[in-house]
């Protein structure tokens, strides 16, 4: 894919403030606030039903929130008595299945959002060029592969030069190998274009790989916003800790200074008052010589392996180890802490 600079239209920032959405019943989104800087790539991550798609659709104007404001650049598009209909928001969106118009060829699909006078001035080819699909302009969507359809959908969304781009689980309908490929291509293109992008995913890996920042949604509220490393290393609470990556949690009554756990002394990096859980990621632990647990299960991944060890005086823990035939089910081993400090999560 080749990047074509977005000329006169600088990317716009986006601000969501105190947004609440309820469909005749419990709230789907509750008092949600989120800021996105111009040119930033933000992932909305959460389990299904957490409201992330509703948030995306509210930004697009496809849902009418009950309360709150949404502004794009310095223009309020929702709230304070105004509601700009989606067709006038200059927001581009790529849907899960592409939503290409099946009765129009690729060229007409991409031209759909352009004003009449711009449909023939080369913008269509430019947009198709960006996604590397200039050669399929005359084909019908039904004849394209899933990955191609998704790229055409992206070209269609980008052609009218939107200020903000929204992606709704754009890779979830693709099979595993294709997904990685299309994801990498889109990633490069979006970074090159520098367009403000918000995308929804339930796949933690996807959120981490693509997002400059990741916003984790839980039950219609924002659980945490931060860089992928923040989320992984310093989750805000136990729910985020377990939702994002594998977690071993050890109960600790006074998480200040160091804590004694079944795997030894663990320095507390971020403490808190009262009883808490210490978060030990699988790579913070190591399996070696010793005798404080029995291997229950070995999951082999190729680049590494995950060993489940049942500690003699404690719970079962997951330990990430180098791949290799070193460990077998039933072996007696010693689990030790090798990390540089743990985060305490309030109960």
């Amino acid at each position, binding site marked *: 894919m080749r990047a074509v600079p977005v000329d006169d239209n600088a990317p716009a920032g986006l601000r969501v403030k105190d947004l609440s959405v309820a469909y005749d019943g419990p709230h789907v989104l509750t008092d949600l606030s989120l800021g996105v800087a111009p040119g930033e790539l933000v992932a909305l991550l959460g389990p299904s039903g957490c409201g992330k798609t*509703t948030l995306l659709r509210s930004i697009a*104007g*496809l849902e009418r929130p009950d309360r709150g404001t949404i502004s794009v650049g310095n223009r309020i598009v929702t709230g304070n008595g105004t509601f700009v209909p989606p*067709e006038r928001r200059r927001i581009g969106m790529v*849907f899960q299945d592409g*939503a290409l*118009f*099946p009765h129009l060829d690729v060229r007409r699909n991409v031209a*759909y*959002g352009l004003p009449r006078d711009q449909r023939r001035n080369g913008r269509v080819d430019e947009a198709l060029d960006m996604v590397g699909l200039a050669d399929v302009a005359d084909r019908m969507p039904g004849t394209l592969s899933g990955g191609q359809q998704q790229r055409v959908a992206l070209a269609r969304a980008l052609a009218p030069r939107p200020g903000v781009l929204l992606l709704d689980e754009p890779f979830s309908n693709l099979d595993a190998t294709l997904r990685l490929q299309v994801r990498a291509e889109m990633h490069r293109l979006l970074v090159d274009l520098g367009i403000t992008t918000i995308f929804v995913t339930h796949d933690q890996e996807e959120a981490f790989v693509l997002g400059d920042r990741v916003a984790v949604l839980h039950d219609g509220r924002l659980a945490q916003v931060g860089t992928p490393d923040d989320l992984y290393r310093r989750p805000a609470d136990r729910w985020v800790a377990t939702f994002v990556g594998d977690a071993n949690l050890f109960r600790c009554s006074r998480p200040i200074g160091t804590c004694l756990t079944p795997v030894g002394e663990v320095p507390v990096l971020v403490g808190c008052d009262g009883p808490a859980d210490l978060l030990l990621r699988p790579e913070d632990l190591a399996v070696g010589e010793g005798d404080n647990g029995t291997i229950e299960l070995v999951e082999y991944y190729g680049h590494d392996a995950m060993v489940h060890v049942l500690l003699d005086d404690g719970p079962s823990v997951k330990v990430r180890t180098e791949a290799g035939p070193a460990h077998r089910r039933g072996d007696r081993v010693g689990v030790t802490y090798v990390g540089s400090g743990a985060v305490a999560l309030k109960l």
Partner: protein
Amino acid sequence: MNEPSTVTPSTVTPSTVTPSTAVPDRAVRHRAGSGRPPWDLSVGAIAVAALFALPGGYVLWRALTGGALHLLVERRALEPLWRTIQLAFLVSASAALTGTALAWLTVRTDLPLRRFWRVVAPLPLVYPSFVGAAAFRSGLTPGGIVHDLVGHLGIDLQFRLQGLVGAWLVLTLFTYPYVYLPVAARLSALPSSLEENARLLGDRPLQVFRRVVLPQASSSIAAGALLVFLYTVSDFGAVHLMRFETLTQTIYRTRLFDQGRSFALALLLLGLALVVVAAERTVARHGARTEALGDRSSLRIPLGRWKAPAIATCSLVVGLALFAPAVSLADWGLFGWFRQRRGLAELRLDWGDVAGATWSTVWVSTVTAVVAIAVVLPVAYLLARHRSRLGGIVNGVVVAGFAIPGLVVAISLIFWTLHASPFEFLIGTMPVLVFAYVVHFGALAVRTAQVAVSSVPRQMNDAARLLGAGRLRRFFTVDLPIMAPGLAAGAGLVMLSTMKELPATLLVSPIGFRTLVVRIWDTYEALYLAEMAILSLVLVAISALLTWFLVVRRADHLA
């Protein structure tokens, strides 16, 4: 990609079509969020409901104010009602039996020539019941093929098919496809794993049929049988030809000199029909359903020594329902020319007359189809895109329109235009005829239109919105092209039903406007049987063509 293949062959009947509910979870979740329908859509839908409620409402009003309701408890009124119900029960039972047997044989067994049987089994639908009745009766009268063949043996055949037996036989033969189609669709959608499991759990084939197949198909059978019941109750032409006086006959006979009685009986018939439709909808909605996912290859039960009786059964049914009427009509038509002395009257065929009637039929049914689709489209949008109470109510009114027998619609509209003072200019005009058709057959269109609207993925519409397209542009550039095949199917169904409709056409047509059914009726009553046969064959040919496109090809997709 978005082929509206969700229209099952059961689309012949409005109430057995289940609109595609295969919307992904999130779409359902967001549907509620789409909120209240726009005001213009609501207003449009209410207007449509008002139009559809007019004929029934007028009958109700006239019956209540006519002071003739007490007639309903008289013996004289109850006799036609009793005859109607008697006939309807007999026909439903025999049609259910025939339709189910044929469906099971053609879908689930190793019957030879299964593909052939599957194509011909639903085809008797192409005969309007009164044409079928006319074909049978004319075949048995002097000059008819049966009478003459027997005559060669030196026997003067005195047997005339009429009365309860005649009506029962004819209506069974031409309505069993209403059971056959949904049951066949159901059986072929039934995963073979169910039956295989039952076999593995120890059931013998016959037990499997009784304990697994029949319960799974029972709601389809019941729904089909109820439609046959409705058809029989509303039938006008066949019972008239068979001289069997059901409610429709009494209403027709008394409409001029005893309007009070006519409207009171019309209300009775209307009530009966509504009860049947309500029952059908309840039945169709219930019933546990298991659909085959992916693998559609169903178990073939070897018939063994039952093969010959099975073939005989299929041949008998199809022979009587499909080939016998065609042969009888063709005999009258073809040889009428040569053997002028044979018939009760000479052939007085005027080809210009045939062409004119054909043109009128095609023209009026096309106009009706287009109008019907346009009228029900707001309702379909309301139902498919917005969740509102209004949608349910409007849909109920439109479906009730289908329940109202054509004769009742016709009588209501005639007297309404006569008596409603600002509307006299409508008396005997084309718009009233089209209106009658649309009210009667709108339900056929609303189902398919609803399927068509929901075949447009919501996301497709959202995508167009975000690309800047307003409502009109979205409708014409996105919705309409995607809905087109589905809407065409709905229009085809309306056309098919319109060109076969007898009582409404007979009563409401403007003077001098003679479609094929009107001409067939007139020529039969005048006993110009050869001409009647030729007109009938033209009508059957046209409706066969349409049925082929609408039913058989789709049924084939399922197989």
